[in-house]
Structure formats: C-alpha cells, structure tokens
C-alpha cells in the first residue's frame, strides 16, 4: 500500500495512500469527510450512496477505490458552483421533496446523471431512472415532481432566481 491512488474528487486532485479494495463510499465519507453520499444498504440496492463518476451516476458502496483511479468523481457537495446551486438541487428545495431526506442524495445524483445524459426526459424516463432508488418514508410524489422541475430548469439553463 505504499502506492497512493490519484483521483479527482469535486474538481480537486486527491492522492490517497489507501488499499485499492476500499469501497469508494468509505473513502469519501471517512477519509475525505464528504457526507453527502449516505450509507444505506451497502449492497448497491438502495442508491443512497450515489455519486457521479465521469458524469455518470454510480453506487459508491460497490465501487472500489482502485476502480476509480484517475477518474473524476463528483459528490453532492461538488454539484453547482460556489453560491449557486445546481438546478437539480434548486428544484428539490423548491418542491420541498424531502421528508427524512436519507435517500435524497441518491435521488438528486441520479437525476443529475439522467440529465447529463438526456436533455428533456419524459416522465416515464424519470420514473425508470429512479426505479432502483429506494425511499422508505413515501415522498415519491414530491421527488418525482422535483425531478421534473429539475429537468425543466436544467433545460432552460437558467439561474434559479430567473426562473422565479
């Protein structure tokens, strides 16, 4: 373990002298203090740990650190820019799409991943994308609404204030 693994996290290069088999989620939360991604099931089933790797959504609990060497990882903390939230975050706030909020990281990151891939997704497409993100407290309606608003905001490419 003398070799460190280099990767970019939220735009910053990190050199981590860690076992490449360590799950990415553990590295993000324990070593980099990025608590946006949540530990849910640890089996890739619930989606609470989602992050973006090379712009695509990924479940950080089933990805080892070694597998993302040299890659670009973005967590919830890395969305948007300083003082300006990502349209997806804005939409979730606007729609008040949280109850317990534990799944919300995964919902937001998955929608971001979807919008990176497709500009104006249909409702069916959004449902399909969020199909394997589990929410236990029943906020599905709000989440879906927020996701659709996010798609609109993102497509408009406008700042949240302008939308208001």
């Amino acid at each position, binding site marked *: 373990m003398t070799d460190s693994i280099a990767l970019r996290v939220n735009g910053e290069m990190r050199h981590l002298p860690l076992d490449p088999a360590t799950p990415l989620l553990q590295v993000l939360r324990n070593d980099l203090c990025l608590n946006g991604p949540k530990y849910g099931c640890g089996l890739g089933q619930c989606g609470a740990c989602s992050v973006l*790797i090379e712009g*695509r959504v990924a479940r950080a609990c*089933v990805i080892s650190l070694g597998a993302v060497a040299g890659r670009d990882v973005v967590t919830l903390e890395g969305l948007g820019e300083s003082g300006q939230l990502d349209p997806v975050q804005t939409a979730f706030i606007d729609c008040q799409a949280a109850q317990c909020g534990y799944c919300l990281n995964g919902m937001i990151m998955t929608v971001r991943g979807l919008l990176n891939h*497709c500009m104006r997704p249909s409702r069916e497409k959004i449902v399909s994308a969020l199909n*394997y993100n589990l929410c236990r407290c029943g906020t599905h309606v709000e989440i879906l609404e927020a996701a659709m608003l996010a798609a609109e905001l993102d497509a408009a490419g406008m700042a949240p204030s302008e939308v208001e």
Partner: protein
Amino acid sequence: MRSPSASRAGRPPLPGHFDDRLGLLRYAVVIRPPSVSFHQGDFNCSRLLDIDHASLGEWSAQVAVVELGNFVAVVAADPDLARHAVRRLRLHWEASSALADVAGQADRNEGENGSTLNAHRPGTMARRYGWPNRLRWGERAGWVVADVLPTRASLWVDTATSDALRDDLSTLLALAPAAISLFSERSDHGGLSLGRLACDDAAADAALISRHIEAPIAIWLDADYQRDVDALGLAETWDVEASGAHALDAVSQQYGMARHAPAMALLLTGLTELERSPAPASRPAESPYRRANPVVKVGDQGGGSDGMRVFAEESFLDEWSRQQTSDPLELRLRHLDDSRGQALIEAVRQRAEWRPVPTSGATIDCSTPLTGRGFAYCHLPDTNGEWESGTRSAWIADVTVDPVTGNVQLTRLVVGQDAGESVNSEALTSALRQQLLPESSLLLRHDGGIDEWGDPTVTPRSMLPAIDTLTLNTSGVPPAVTTDALTPGGVDSGWVDARAHFNAQTLAPGTAAIANALCDATGLRFREPPFTAARIRAGLREQAAADSDQAPDFGRRPESTLFGTRRRRRRRWTSAVVASLLTLGGAAATVLPWKASIAPIPRPASDLYSEAAIERGRLVAEAGDCAVCHTADEDGVANAGGRAFETPFGTVFSTNITPDEATGIGNWSFGAFERAMRHGISRDGHHLYPAFPYTAFAKLSDTDMQSLYAYLMTQPAVPSRSIENDIRFPFNIRGLMAGWNLLNHDPKPFTPDPTQSALWNRGAYLAEGVGHCSACHSPRNAMGAEKRGDDYFAGALIDGWEAPALSQLSKSPVPWSESALYDYLRTGRAAQHGVAAGPMAPVVAGLGELPESDVRAIAHYVASFMPTAIDAAQASDLADEHVALTAAAPPGFDAGERLYRGACASCHEGGDVPVYSRAETSLALNTNLHSDRPDNVIQTILDGVVAPHSRAGNAGDMPGFRADFSDSQLTALVSYLRGRFAPDQPAWEHLSERIGELRGEAVP
C-alpha cells in the same frame, strides 16, 4: 488436441520463387539415428535394423518412408501428417559403439575447458582451440525445398557456404556442380562466412529425398537440426604451446587433426568416402610473430585453415598476456618484426583509445552489465601466396555481456586494415557492415524464440555496433590484396582443403577479438565458436557458484577475481561432476521413489541479480500466479504459503516460497529450485503433490526459470508456520508420487510447433507452461492427473468453482472469439460474456502485468481450441437475440423474481440511463447460468465478485449476499435466474443441497 484449421492457418510460407502450381510438393521429416558422432574423421552411428511399416496403421497409404542406409525420412502431402507419422513409426536401431560417442564428447570438452597439455610444466602454457563443423543450425527457421530431376537439381535454401553445399550435392546426386542451382533469399553472403550451418544438412536431406521420391520436397529447418551441429563436432583443432618464465620465449603451434564433415545425408547413406588423413597442405601456415628470439614456430605439417590459425593464435596470445598480467597489445608489438604491422597496431590503438587494462583483481558486479574489450591482429598472404605484400588487419572489439541472460552485444569495433593505396574505405566499411556484422551477430545473437518476453517488434533485440574502420596507406602494396579480402569468391583456396570453408580471412581476427573481449568482460575463455548466450550464461553461473562457495563465512557476496586461481579451477571441475550427477538424477527421477536431498546454501545476496532478470522473473511469477496459491486466504502475506487446497485425496496446504531460510526457500540452490519446478521434488528430496503444477512448469525455458529464481530470491523473506497436509492413506506416502510421475509427468521442456505461427507458439508456451491454464481447465483422471487429448481444456471443478471448458465443449451462449478472450484476459471483462470472478480474478490481475503481446498470444492460442465460426457482427446479433429472449420472466418463479428485483435488478437490469456501477453484460449471456452445474452462480451470489483488475471503464464489484439470503431464498433466486436467463437449459437438480455444501465449504 488442436483444431486442424488453426494449424493450417499458421503455416509459414514456402520460400519465394518456389512455384508449386502443379501441387507436387511433399513434406518430409527426417529421423536421425539415436546415436550419431563424427570424431576426427570417424563417423559412427546406430545402424538401422528394421522399420516396422505396420506401425503406421491406416496412414501407411498416405505416408512414404524413405530408407537409404541409415538415412530415414517420412514423406507426406501434409507436414502435420508427416510429423505425426514420425511419432507413430517404429524403428529398430542397433546401438553404435558407445566409445566413439564418448570420444566425440571428450573432443568437445577439451576444447571447451582448455585441455592443458603439459600445463604443469613451469613456465609453459598449452591450449587447444577448436572450430566446429557446423556453427549452428541456421539463421532462422523456415522451409528448405529441393526439386531434383535426373539431369538437374534446384534448391531453395539460405546457405552461407554455397560452394561446399554444391560439392556435397554433387556427390550425393551424382550431378555436375553446374547442374545444381541454389536459390537463396539472402544475396549478401558474398562467399564470406565463418563456417557451415546445418541448413546445408537440411538441404542435402531434402535433395536426397526428392531424388528418391521424384517430387519436390520441403523440409522444415529449425532448432531440431542442432543435433546435427552437436553430432558433427569439431572440424579443426589447433594446439598452441608456449614457454617462457616471464616473457614469451617460444610458441609452437600444431594443426591438431580433425575433419571437415560433409552433409549428414552423405555420412548416413555412406555415399562419401572418408579419407583418413587431411588433405596435404601445399604450404605450411605462417605466423606474423617471428622476431628472431622469441620465436613463434608453426608445426611443419601445416594444414588447417588460416582463419582457424588466426583465431587460435590470437586467443592464445591474449590468454598468455592475461596470465602474465601484461598488456595483450604490447605483447604483440614486442614480438612483431614487421614495421607495417606495428604502425597499424599503433594507429588502431590510438583510434580506439586502448589503455592497458588491469588484468587481475577486478571484480564482477553481477547487477550491472559486464563490459570488456579485446584485441586481435592478423597478417595473411595475398592471393599469390606472397607474405610480405599480404594484408594486415588489427581489431579492437568492445562487448557488453548481460550477466544474467548471457546476451552479448558488440558495442564497438575498431578495424584497421593495411591494404594499400587503392583501398576505397567506403567499400571496406560497407563490406564490413554487410558481411561482417551479420556474421558477428550470428555468433553473438540471442537465440530469441518462445520465451522472449514482450513484443519483439517493439523492442530492438540487438544494437548495431559503432564500427570504425581505419585504412593505412603504405606505398607499394598491390591492390589485389584488398580485392582478395573483399571480393566474394576471390579467394584462391588451392592450398586449403576444398571443404574447409573457413574462408573469411577478414572475419577471422574479429572472432578472436570478440573472444578476447568476452574474456576481459567475464573471465571466461571460449576456445571454440560460437559464443552463444547459453554458453556464457552457463559459464557465469558456474563461476558464481564457485565464488559463493569460496568464502561463505564472511558475507554473502564475496568479491570475485577475474582470473581463476587453482582453487577456482578445482571447484569448477567439482561442480561439473555434480552437474553431471544431477543430470543422471534428473533422468532417474521418475524411477526411484527416493530422491537425494540437495545441500542447502546460504540465501543468495539480493544484489546478485540484475534488475532485468528480476523484472523478467516478476513477469514469469505474474504469469504463473505464484502468489495466488502461495498466499493464505485471510490476511495472508504474499507468497508465504498456507492456503488450503481440497483435493479428492485430502487437503494440501501451499508452502512458503519467500526466501526465508528456515521456513521458505531461502536455502534452496537454483538446482534445487529447478528440480522442484520441473520434477516436483522438494530440496530435501521428498516428492511434491501435483497440486503444485510442476507438470506445467517443466515447460519453462531455462532463462525464465533462472529469472523466476532471481525474482523470488530477492523478495522479502517472511517466516511462516508450516501446516501439515491432511492427505488420506495411502496417498500420504509421498514416494508413491514417483510412480505417478512415471505415468503422468513429462518433464520435457516446451518445444514449439513449427507448423504454427510464432504468436501461437508463444501463447502455447505461456499457457501450457508457466500459465498452467490446463491445471484448472482440464479434467483430471482418477489419479489426479490432467487428462489430455480431447479432454484437454474440457473444463473441471476446482476449489468449489467450475473452470469452464475452453474447447468446443464451452457452454457459452455466444461463442468466444480471440478478441473476446483477449478483452477478458486483459481487462477482466468481455462484453458478450461477463467478468472474471472467483479464482480467475487474480489470474487476470496477474496477466495485467504482462506485456500486451503476451496476453494476445495466450488469447490466440486458447482461441485455436474454440470453434470460431462466427464473426463479430454475428456474435453481436446472437447476443441481442439471447437478451431479447430473456427480457420477460417466466411464470412460476415469483419468490425468486421478488428477490431478484430487490437485490439484483438495480445493477443487472439495463435502464435507459447509463449507470457507472451497472453490470454491462446481461445475465442472459453469462456462461455460468448456462453451465451444467450451478456452482459458479452460487459462489458468486454468496461471496460476490471482487475485481481488483478493473481496467475496463465500469467494473463495479458485486457484493456478496452470504449474510443476506437464507439457503431457501438462494434456491429460489438461483432457480429463477436459470429459468429466466437460460430458458433452453434444464433446471438444476439438487440445488438446495449444493447451496448448503458450497456455503459450508467456501471461506467467507
């Protein structure tokens, strides 16, 4: 064993210009007598008694057997058929007199070790030098073709000695030399060559068979012809003796008799009359060193060739000066009474910046390349036999020797030639470049071949030396001298035996200069060409062994002096005896149940081996996955052993292969290591179980074996606790393994298949040898030995996993292709097959360290066993079809489907959105779900897939569900997966029992 289509595809082309439009060409394989020797003109071989034609069975209609005296060959329309027929054909030979064989060997050894005639008389030194009849088998492997008609003959062969070959063929075929046409793809031999190659023997073989069969014949020329090179022994020997307490007082030379051997076919058929005495020389040989006193005297009888004499004399003077620790160049100058020669040597000395080198007390640092330089001088008469007007040349060669591989590079050559005013130095340079350098590299070239790591097209194998020529203008010298040296065929060889084709006067001193440089670099004296890497390696190894024995008490790496003391010489002799005993031991290994222990040695110093050797050894270890088996499962230290292997005979634990002296292999000599690797016998003499795949490792080349030893011995030593194997009676009696080996183990090294491509052979070497693919992928018989033949690569169970079939028996829904195999082995993932898991995951991780070309070679080789009837587009269509078929779940699996939706679908169902951590390959294409056994599916769900090798973009690890699913849930889930994704396969039986077994068996 291999698909016929693959062997056809890889067949190398016939020589250019050979036209077989009539389809008459036949392929022949010659069978040499078991014992052949040629010693001082006496030819001796086993006599052919009888050929059992019935042993060919049904092939006898398609195969012709040519029998002419003791010359036997098998001819067929297909080279594969001919080769297989040779294996099947039974011949009865009468043993030849063993004495002659021994004599031939002694002849060689004397030259090799420098028989010291009268060596013990004080102040004298005597040495014997030899020149072999065949330098080596050839320049490269290829077809040699002969088409012999009653009135003329045509041969396609890259001979370097066309005159000698034409002579032989003329005798063999009773045709005039003019009726024999030789077609060579090389046009630059120019009549200059250091000696004959065994390609001449192959050509004569082909011609003889062609005349007999009345059809054109192709013979494959390759390293098999090395046996002719060995059998034909020495062509000439020279004894040189000198006296003088300090200065060199007198030197006398004798042309020690040997005989130039004609082509093997002539000897075997008895078509040539061997003369007992050498052709009388019309002129005694002369030496340039004849200053009145001291004197160099050449034997009265003369004979022999000038080139050979120059080699012997120049080597000897170098040896003498080294023994006297004087400068070899000064020695020449002192004894030369020729002002032109002195001026030339001075000029060359300045050009090359020659400095007297310390000739003793220097140390060999084995971790860095050895460098050395050598000098040689030559004065030969001109074409008219005039001595004074002859050509003088002086050579300084610089070489670099890799102490581990024995590879030699000629790094610089300064050649001064005194050849009169009209010399065109440009022509001289170009002649030297074209004619000398190929010959020099012929002497020195690394053998290359199937154990070459990395892509040979990328890595340059040898470096062209910086050649530096110098021509001195001295007036009054006729230009004929120069023409003589440079014009092909211009040599008047009237006074030389017509078959003595050591015609390269220009090249002769070069040979000596290189031999002297090699001695300067390594302390090893080679008294016969060629100077192969194998000989240099062997010499260095012997030297290193002697050195490490010399002072075992104070430090691990005693300093070694360049030139052997008497003690060294005795050591060398002793180790030669030990080596021959070892060989005998190796031969007897399969018969005797009890094996001798090999004495422990202090652990070799870590700086003994070059970085190149250690790196190569690391690649061998990665390709062989040493650490996979020799590391305990839980937090095991790499290579410290302790991993358990369940076998039908009990549990075997892997051992510690770190260089720890007490519990590892730290005190194993290379000999002990090699014996274990090739014969499955531990250092202390006990038999190892074939769970350790020595049956495959026996195929390793020597170089790879040595590199692997170097690598393992330079790793950190880790002490371990040894664990007793738990083997049932009677299998716990290790001596029984002797019988097992007799029945099941073939310790022969890997031999490339000449009809296959280099890529295929490289792949076969890796896969059959160090990669030991078949150790897991071939089923084993009741004795635990791998089955061969049709069962090769037919799949097997290992460690609770199924190693799937790699042959036509593969259950893969989409057939594997070479490129899919490459992706799988290189990245751990093939798009239409899935990812490497279980015991295969670390294998792929190891392969990740290998050069790309090697992984391609393995894929190419393995693919030759698989049906590859479909192309990429068809495979893609087939895959889509399978996926579409399994989109919907069949009814009746509700419980399983619920579990699948919750636990698996998030990664295994394709969605519209790209997900980095999603499994890219549909389960519909997964080989494991289509197998006859559920083992791999169950293992994967229990413990997941860990992909340390994830080179492919999106390889997520699969978590294990051992703790999350009960046995009944697993049963439901696995039934569902089978029912949905392999609808054409029957449901697995006894599923829940197997799940219970595997859950208990596998280590969490």
